């Protein structure tokens, strides 16, 4: 009987110790947003936003009635350049430019097989826009300078296939090839919705080809570029981080990095990602 009591006491003690240990080693909940307030010299502020709707809607492209809200966010955050995805076309872009009171210039990509367009808005009046053919799709690049003494910046607005990981991989390969050819003459930034399904935290997926394709794509980009929004968290509903801004690997200063979770309106399924870097 005495031994029984001892065994129970030891087990109880062990149980309490383990609970205390679990509490002691518990990590404080990570702040959802990484919001550095550090001042950045020659600051370049970029924003990427897929302003389309979730899959369940009739028309999943951007809606004109949301444009005032989109413009409000852009004017409030005051980025130097904006990469937009899922615009319906030039007419919609012009409405948005009007709502921005002429503060930005912009263009949309050529039409590929899809019914939606990538767009870029830039503050610099001397910016040039370059169509980028990536397989059957088109991305759009804007070349601009912040100031006379700063290097030339090339921002690509991109949107990879939402439904096929192998197509995303081919698209990424072509895109990086194109961008790599320009890194000598410009600071290249790639921003947009890549649709990568790479969520590593807490999930134990077994091996799938789709996962492998996205892994290959993402790893390929990281060979030459830096994932600037990595610490900012999810950018779309259902805890997905599918919107990215990639930049030069040797960027010395990274300022504010934030997913603007109060920005989505209507049935939008993405939030804008804002990144501030020093050139």
């Amino acid at each position, binding site marked *: *009987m005495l*031994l*029984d009591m001892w*065994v*129970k006491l030891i*087990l*109880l003690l*062990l*149980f309490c*110790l*383990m*609970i*205390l*240990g*679990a509490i*002691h*080693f*518990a*990590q404080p909940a990570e702040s959802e947003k990484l919001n550095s307030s550090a001042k950045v010299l020659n600051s370049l502020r970029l924003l990427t936003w897929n302003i389309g709707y979730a899959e369940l809607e009739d028309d999943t492209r951007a809606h004109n009635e949301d444009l005032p809200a989109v413009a409000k966010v852009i004017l409030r955050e005051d980025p130097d350049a904006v990469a937009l995805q899922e615009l319906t076309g030039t007419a919609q872009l012009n409405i948005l430019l009007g709502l921005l009171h002429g503060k930005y210039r912009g263009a949309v990509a050529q039409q590929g097989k899809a019914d939606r367009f990538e767009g870029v808005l830039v503050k610099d009046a001397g910016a040039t826009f370059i169509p980028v053919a990536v397989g059957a799709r088109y991305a759009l690049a804007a070349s601009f300078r912040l100031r006379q003494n700063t290097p030339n910046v090339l921002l690509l607005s991109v949107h990879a296939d939402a439904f096929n990981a*192998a197509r995303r*991989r*081919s698209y990424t*390969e072509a895109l*990086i*090839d194109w961008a790599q050819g320009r890194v000598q003459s410009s600071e290249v930034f790639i921003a947009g919705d890549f649709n990568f*399904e*790479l*969520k*590593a*935290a*807490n*999930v*134990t*997926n*077994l*091996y799938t080809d789709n*996962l*492998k394709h*996205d*892994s*290959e794509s*993402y*790893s*390929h980009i*990281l060979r030459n570029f830096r*994932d600037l929004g*990595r610490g900012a968290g999810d950018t779309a509903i*259902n*805890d997905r981080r599918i919107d990215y801004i990639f930049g030069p690997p040797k960027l010395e200063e990274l300022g504010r990095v934030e997913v603007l979770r109060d920005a989505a309106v209507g049935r939008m399924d993405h939030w804008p990602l804002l990144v501030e870097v020093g050139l």
Partner: protein
Amino acid sequence: MLTLLKLELEKLFRAKSFYLSFLVLVGFVALMLWGFYTYAARKTGGEAVEQFKYTYESKQYFNGLTFALYSVLFSFTLLLPIFVSMSAGSQVAGESRAGTLRMICTRPISRASLVLAKFLVTALHAALLLTFFIGLNLMVGLIFVGWGNLELYPGPLNLVDVPGKIMRDDALMRFAYAVLSGTWALLVIAALALLCSVIFDSPVQATVMTIAAYLTLYIVGRVEFFEHLRPYFFTTDMDFWRDVFKPDIPWQSLWHYACVCGAYTAGLLLTTVIIFERKDIVT
């Protein structure tokens, strides 16, 4: 207590199921080797190279350590818990079914120490299984696939957010850590199966109930409907063992989840002892 432990060990080594569990693991390694070989051949040449220009999957990536890592991670989720459940589930219920439990309990031994001895033997079985399995995978990997560094990429296996690498010698040490962390995680299943073994009189029932509980939580935990419940499942906490394969081991998180698993194990064992003490043994 020591005599009890010796007797339980004898029973374990005499049981056919003990050797069967190792045999099945050998079969699994053979299957993995075949799959790995054919997959590596497909992905490092021919169609894959034509379709995609760039790949991290080179012959250097497909080495013995990568093989062992995939094999261990795949089997840990579903295969090893089954053997641990079988071993622990038959400890008390098996005696009950064989009609020997009543006889044991008429002897001047404490019921709590009997439960403890049976649990320790099950823990040893789990540790032996994992040691054997990891050792076998590394050996097969070395002989049939060849050594190299352990390269990790985001996505598959969900171990890293950015590409990472663990050098060969360090990686071997990580496999040794995995024996410890994996065994510790499996003890939760062992304790649950032992509890079922005390509650039910049939070892099959005890094993099936344990596996059912484990699989239910495991599957429910992967369905997004129950995303908010996921942190409360022991199956989620058990996953900590894999952290030893991350390039930078997150020690604080690892200790946290190890303690949570320890609390589950100790709590379940305490419940088992209390129930077993009050159990009216009629067979």
